[in-house]
């Protein structure tokens, strides 16, 4: 070995040893023995930027730190940081009476001025919040006195309280954390009023949340929660077995961190319990009714595909019963969605007869049907990163083939699929509703939005009537009228068969056997950790 080679290798060894010696301290409670009465949950992604007025942070983490004026519960809107409120007769002015004695984690008082500054900070970035209609309707936010604040809207908007209850953007950050009076270009800290304080964050490794001992609603009993980043489901499962993490729940994308078999195996170990929420969203196939050069523009084709989707088998075989078969766009627990609609159960004979009646003819078995020389062939786009969507697509493809319908499967990145949805460049694609709390109003508002479902809905027979009713429903101030309008809207899209439901998804929690108080919020994006305690 030459002298130079020896020197090169020696330098490498020195570099390695010095770099290895630089490794940091111990991460949170990543040791099974330390867990005790703490929760360490596995998360596939880092909690990211916790600025509550932007959209990149982890919603479950933001839900622990920040609070809104009101809370959405199963029984309706309830007080949170606002103890009570009045709504003017014309529905345009909301006056909130704030809870007294609340402070931000940094000691700053939570008062009308803090509310005003936060709302104004959100509105300074109005374009980014256009999805939440309230942000386009607030004309001013006035601090009436220390604990009274008033929101003035340009027109009446019935989901105001609902949208104020959402995880973001109308939640409150200590004004001390603002940069130049704004939050849109970053913040100095992450101090909310919530039950947990973010005390440590090591990007892409872990984040530690400690109980807010001066929380206005009493300090939470679980004193420490650690979010540990574990991108691989296999590692999460092994870390659960070893006790390095002891809590897992459905992630922001509605996907389970560990697969169904792993859950069964953990359940049989006797150390864990599984808790599943009521339906939170609907997974569906969206059909582009405005695609002029595709068979998908025909209602009969869409209806036939609806009859050809075997939801029960998908629920049992692909989701192992963890998702339930869905018959309509919204589950009946969604507000205003308990409407009588025609059922379209799995029925291949019915599907075939619909196609025959509308002129899609087939010569023999396994042959693609044809009408006016056009084959009954469509593309179905699925998220390439979702293994369950691929399996569902393949299964639906095989049943559709039995009725002479050819589905070409195309896997793409989710952002590419979102782009197709907004440009209308698709026949069929997988999607899901916004979820409880956001449904039905946000999903329905998206029917008219070019960035969302305008191409999906614009080809159906009663499109104009649909849009008119959607315009009326949000400004409607009477409950009965609203109910009737929603029933009409849901009937029109159901008859148009543009949203073909597959399953209802829920939030799943894997938790230690002795953890009590596991409940769910009216959203799939958060968990009320503050209610949990060890027995």
């Amino acid at each position, binding site marked *: *070995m*030459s002298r*130079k*080679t020896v020197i*090169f*290798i020696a330098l*490498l*060894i020195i*570099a*390695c040893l010095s*770099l*290895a010696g*630089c*490794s*940091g*301290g*111990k*991460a949170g409670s*990543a*040791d099974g023995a330390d867990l005790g009465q703490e929760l360490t949950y596995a998360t596939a*992604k*880092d909690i*990211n*930027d916790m600025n509550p007025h*932007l*959209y*990149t942070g982890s919603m479950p983490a933001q839900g622990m730190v920040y609070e809104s004026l009101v809370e959405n519960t199963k029984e309706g809107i309830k007080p949170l940081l606002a103890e009570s409120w009045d709504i003017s007769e014309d529905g345009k002015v909301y006056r909130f009476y704030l809870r007294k004695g609340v402070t931000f984690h940094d000691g700053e008082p939570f008062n009308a001025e803090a509310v005003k500054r936060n709302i104004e900070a959100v509105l300074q970035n109005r*374009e*980014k919040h*256009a*999805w939440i209609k309230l942000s386009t309707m607030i004309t001013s936010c006035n601090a009436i006195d220390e604990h009274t604040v008033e929101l003035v809207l340009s027109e009446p908007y019935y989901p105001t309280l609902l949208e104020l209850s959402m995880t973001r953007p109308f939640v409150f950050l200590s004004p001390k954390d603002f940069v130049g009076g704004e939050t849109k*270009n*970053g913040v100095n800290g992450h101090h909310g009023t919530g039950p947990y304080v973010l005390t440590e964050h*090591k*990007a*892409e*490794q*872990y984040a530690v949340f400690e109980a807010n001992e001066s929380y206005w609603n009493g300090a939470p009993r679980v004193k420490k929660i650690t979010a*540990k*980043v*574990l*991108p*691989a489901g*296999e*590692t999460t499962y*092994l*870390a659960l*077995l*070893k006790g*390095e993490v002891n809590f897992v729940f459905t992630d922001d994308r509605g996907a389970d961190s560990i697969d169904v078999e792993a859950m069964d195996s953990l359940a049989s170990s006797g150390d864990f319990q599984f808790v599943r929420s009521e339906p939170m969203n609907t997974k569906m196939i969206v059909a582009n009714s405005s695609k002029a050069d595709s068979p998908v523009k025909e209602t009969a084709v869409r209806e036939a595909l609806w009859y050809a989707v075997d939801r029960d088998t998908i629920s049992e075989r692909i989701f192992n019963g963890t998702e339930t078969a869905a018959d309509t766009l919204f589950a009946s627990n969604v507000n205003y969605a308990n409407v009588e609609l025609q059922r379209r159960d799995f029925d291949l004979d019915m599907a075939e007869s619909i196609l025959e009646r509308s002129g899609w003819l087939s010569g023999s078995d396994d042959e693609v049907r044809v009408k006016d020389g056009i084959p009954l062939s469509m593309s179905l786009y699925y998220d390439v*990163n979702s293994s369950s969507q691929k399996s569902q697509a393949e299964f639906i493809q095989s049943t559709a083939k039995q009725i002479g319908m050819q589905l070409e499967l195309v896997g793409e*990145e989710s*952002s*590419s699929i*979102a*782009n197709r949805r*907004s440009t209308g460049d698709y026949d069929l694609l997988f999607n899901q509703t916004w979820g409880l709390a956001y449904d039905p109003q946000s999903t329905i508002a998206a029917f008219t*939005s070019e*960035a*969302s479902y305008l191409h999906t809905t614009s080809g159906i027979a009663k499109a104009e009537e649909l849009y008119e009713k959607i315009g009326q429903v949000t400004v409607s101030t009477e409950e009965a009228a609203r109910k009737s309008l929603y029933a009409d809207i849901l009937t029109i899209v159901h008859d148009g068969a543009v949203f073909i439901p597959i399953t209802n998804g829920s939030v799943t929690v894997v938790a230690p056997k002795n953890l009590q108080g596991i409940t769910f919020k009216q959203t799939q994006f958060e968990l009320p950790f503050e209610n949990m305690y060890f027995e």
Partner: protein
Amino acid sequence: MSFYRFKRVLLSIPLFLAASFFTFILIHLSPMDPVEVVLHAQGVPKITAELIAQTKAELGMDRPFFVRYVSWFVSCLQLDFGNSYVTGKPVWSLLGPALLNTLKLTLVSLVAIIALSIGLGVASAWREGRFVDRSVRSASFVLTSMPTYWLGALMIWFFSVKLDLLPTSGMDSFNSYLLPVVLITVNYAGIYFRIVRSSVLSNMNEDYVLYCRACGLPEKTVMMHVIRNSLQVAVSVFCMAVPIILGSTVVVENLFAWPGLGTLSVNSILARDFPIIQAYVLVLAAAFVLFNTVSDILNAALDPKLRNDL
């Protein structure tokens, strides 16, 4: 030799420039409008025409293509890769720590790979066709043909869960290095030891070995000459192993939740966080150009004949 070094370094500049240009146009290869890509990465639920116009102006995307390229490249040379679309933080503040974490893993693994490859390669060649040789080759065949992901999960199950000796993941202590380092080492040493082995074998058939033996030199001394000459081949292999490992730690980092370049690049690709992807590709390209140049210079130092090739 210094003229050779100068020429070799000079040649690497156009290579790096070409790499930087292709890196910059990455965002334009997406079928979507680059501004829409940015807004999707920021998780904006609804993209409006006004928002697109506002973001375009904010990011300076309304300037001509080459003006943007030159300004980006000049900034990159000062380690200013812009801000992440997702977090809004400067890219270097995210890439720097990730690069350091992956470098730690890479360099510790490299030492193990070099030691193991040379040790096993020489032992295998020394005992060619015998039990040691056959066992080493069989073991390397089995281990390198196992999917990394599966082998890694198996190692975590055995050493962390069953024996409770090591953590399953993270980079909290020296112990957390062991499993990822072993996994990387198994992968690369299993390939590189063959290069050392064949180089030793071919040297053992050279005339100088026969001459040494004829002169009555002890077998140990003969072997030392063989090893020294054989390792010239290994120098370039081990040099290039650094950027190769740097760029291929995705699976290992993902499995062991190692907050390095692999994890960062995958997250950025999934989120279409182009400033990070561009910086990642550029840093890796720079590493390849650098180590390729170093390898050539080292080889030329070891073998003067190579200096005439340039």
